[in-house]
């Protein structure tokens, strides 16, 4: 091992590397995460068996514990950076880490988009009697005709009033043709406009930060968070309309299933992204971030752009075609 060679280079690869001290955060995170999922699973099982029990409380304790651990863990990581302990190399590692984390999120959505694609192009038509496969599939669900959106389930066609999966019925989908107040009253369009704008506003915030214009930075960031809140509120209204007015629910067959799972997970990610941006706003308020050291904010904004792209796919595949 010859450690003295090249030491005069200005390359930052040669910086002393910061290996963090021992840390209690990981093990605490594991314990609280275990508590959360054990409680949640117990709670779901108790719900299904219609029993009372402590599952829900265990989950809440686990959740609060987990969130606190993450809070203090991130806090420490931020403090280390502000004390100048992070080398440029470590900062690049964070960038790689966030990038690959977002890729993993992309693949999570990919599974659900894949399910939608498979049902609409293969499973659905076969169930409705199309092609060689359809000939015998339709023996099981005789008389079922496939259309998308599935507003009357095979279950209803065969079992009538005894059906478990009850579709929303004709003209009760989220498609523009079924929109009640014309295209301008069509929520998804507004949500698309809002989310796309918010990607632009977060970019303006970034430009402001890069130009050391903190007022521009903070106000555009605040606007982004507000747009996120409006988006979530509109989605809440949409869900309310679906459940109350249209009778379109998670239980109403594969259309409701894919609709709510895709938009629901997206909405959850919007919530996460909004929380990240909100934390960045609070940090900005406390004087964090400079034009050359703003990984926290940048990673939150990358996440935000990712959420935006997922929405564009959703808008196209779930609402339009």
């Amino acid at each position: 091992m010859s450690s003295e060679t090249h030491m005069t280079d200005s390359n930052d690869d040669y910086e002393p590397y910061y290996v963090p001290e021992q840390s209690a955060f990981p093990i605490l995170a594991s314990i609280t995460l275990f508590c959360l999922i054990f409680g949640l699973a117990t709670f779901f099982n108790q719900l299904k068996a219609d029993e009372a029990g402590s599952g829900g409380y265990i989950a809440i304790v686990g959740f609060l514990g987990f969130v606190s651990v993450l809070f203090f863990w991130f806090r420490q990581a931020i403090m280390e950076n502000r004390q100048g302990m992070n080398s440029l190399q470590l900062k690049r590692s964070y960038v790689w880490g966030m990038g690959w984390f977002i890729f993993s999120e992309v693949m999570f959505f990919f599974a659900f988009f894949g399910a939608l694609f498979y049902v609409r192009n293969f499973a659905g038509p076969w169930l409705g009697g199309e092609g060689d496969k359809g000939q015998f599939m339709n023996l099981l669900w005789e008389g079922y005709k496939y259309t998308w959106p599935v507003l009357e389930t095979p279950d209803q066609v065969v079992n009538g009033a005894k059906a478990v999966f009850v579709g929303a019925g004709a003209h009760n989908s989220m498609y523009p043709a079924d929109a009640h107040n014309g295209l301008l009253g069509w929520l998804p369009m507004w949500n698309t406009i809002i989310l796309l704008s918010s990607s632009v506003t977060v970019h303006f915030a970034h430009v402001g930060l890069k130009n050391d214009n903190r007022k521009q930075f903070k106000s555009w960031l605040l606007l982004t968070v507000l747009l996120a809140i409006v988006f979530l509120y509109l989605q809440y209204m949409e869900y309310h309309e679906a459940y109350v007015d249209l009778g379109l629910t998670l239980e109403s067959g594969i259309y409701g299933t894919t609709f709510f799972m895709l938009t629901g997970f997206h909405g959850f990610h919007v919530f996460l992204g909004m929380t990240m941006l909100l934390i960045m706003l609070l940090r900005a308020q406390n004087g964090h971030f400079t034009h050359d050291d703003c990984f926290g904010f940048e990673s939150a904004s990358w996440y935000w752009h990712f959420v935006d792209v997922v929405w564009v796919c959703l808008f196209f595949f779930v609402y339009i075609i």
Partner: protein
Amino acid sequence: MGDHGPAKGFGRWLFTTNHKDIGSMYLWFSFAMFLMGGVFALVIRAELFQPGLQLVEPEFFNQMTTMHGLVMVFGAVMPAFVGLANWLIPMMVGAPDMALPRMNNWSFWILPFAFALLTSTLFMEGGGPNFGWTFYAPLSTTYAPPSVTYFIFAVHIMGASSIMGSINIIATILNMRAPGMTLMKMPLFVWTWLITAYLLIAVMPVLAGCVTMMLMDIHFGTSFFSAAGGGDPVLFQHVFWFFGHPEVYIMILPAFGIVSAIIPTFARKPLFGYASMVYATASIAFLSFIVWAHHMFTVGMPIAGELFFMYATMLIAVPTGVKVFNWITTMFRGSMSFETPMLFSIAFVILFTIGGFSGLMLAIAPADFQYHDTYFVVAHFHYVLVPGAIFSIFAGVYYWLPKWCGNMYDERLGKAHFWLSFVGLNVTFFPMHFVGLAGMPRRIPDYALQFADFNQIASMGAFLFGFSQVFFLFIVIKTIRGGKQATDEVWENPEGLEWTIPSPAPYHTFTTPPAVK
């Protein structure tokens, strides 16, 4: 930060940020799971020793087949490779530690909790998961025991652990290499792990999506896998195998890297075809995404699907053949010696090739209609996993253990362990080809009388193989506690930065980067 050594007491292991500590924990955890999964397997083999039902109820037998698969895949093989990655990748690329040391600790410490939860389902009302490690719907949804909910969440956090571990490995490889360590100078173990980590990040979220769909179907009335609501149970198999096929390469690519390190050392020749090894690994990874439905030939796909997946699957034989060719060519006219790691590696090349060929047989869609769900399939994937993944891990442990603990293992005992394992595994799994071709179905606790002889032989082999691993434990502990002092190089002129540091490797290595020529 400095040269502080390990902390005192048990806190060292709970709070550590050191890649060597974490690597050791991964390896010990993996070995514990290997023994537990092995006990499950021996329950299966004991029941199958004779036709008829002797030892366990069919319901419990199903739980054993399920848990054996889950524990071996997610608890034994994957963590063992992550443990090796933790120990070796920083030393191989000349980095002081993993890129994100605290997250590294978290990736590990999720696992004991996940497996405690998974194993505890065996004691729950209604029993543990009984639907096979592939947990096909509706067995795992409509007809599942209540413990399936715990299983789902256990899989979720195992996936989180794998994703974080992989992000760490990729960041380490791409960002922490010593100056001069260009990508095409990296040891193949590093290359294969880079590609494996990419596969993991790509498919573990799909598995998470898959179990999430199950959770929703079970508890919240969705109809992903229910035709009554317009969904399709076959959808489950597509989503699962989109994860599952890359997953089987996740369990073999790092093994390729290990034998690619060992064979050149004991053949005393540089590896033949380094660049083609890298490209072959990348091709295998790419192909792994477009072959998943060859697990589902009998499910009733359109003929175009059958043909596409059949040809795409056969294509994998090309890059795999490149690899086998390179290993053999490396040995060709080499100055060979047969220390334990080399024995395991040569057995790897031969037996993995057998497993690969039975895979080619299974890839032929019309023939697969006959083989599907028989013991032939069991024979095939055990031939790629046991002398494939597991033997490579043994080989790696014997090869690098002197570097880790500073002592040489006892060569006679190591060779004894090799021959016991080699005989045991072939006696166990080779007869399964025959009973499978003759039509014995897998995952069934009873069988027709004509299969009795081969099953008895297989069961005896299984117990031989199983107890040989206790012997392995003894050898490893003996080596850690003492033995001949290992030199820094350990072997004769081995390739790689890890042999330039003292044995045992100091707690912190490469705090300043080494020079790479």
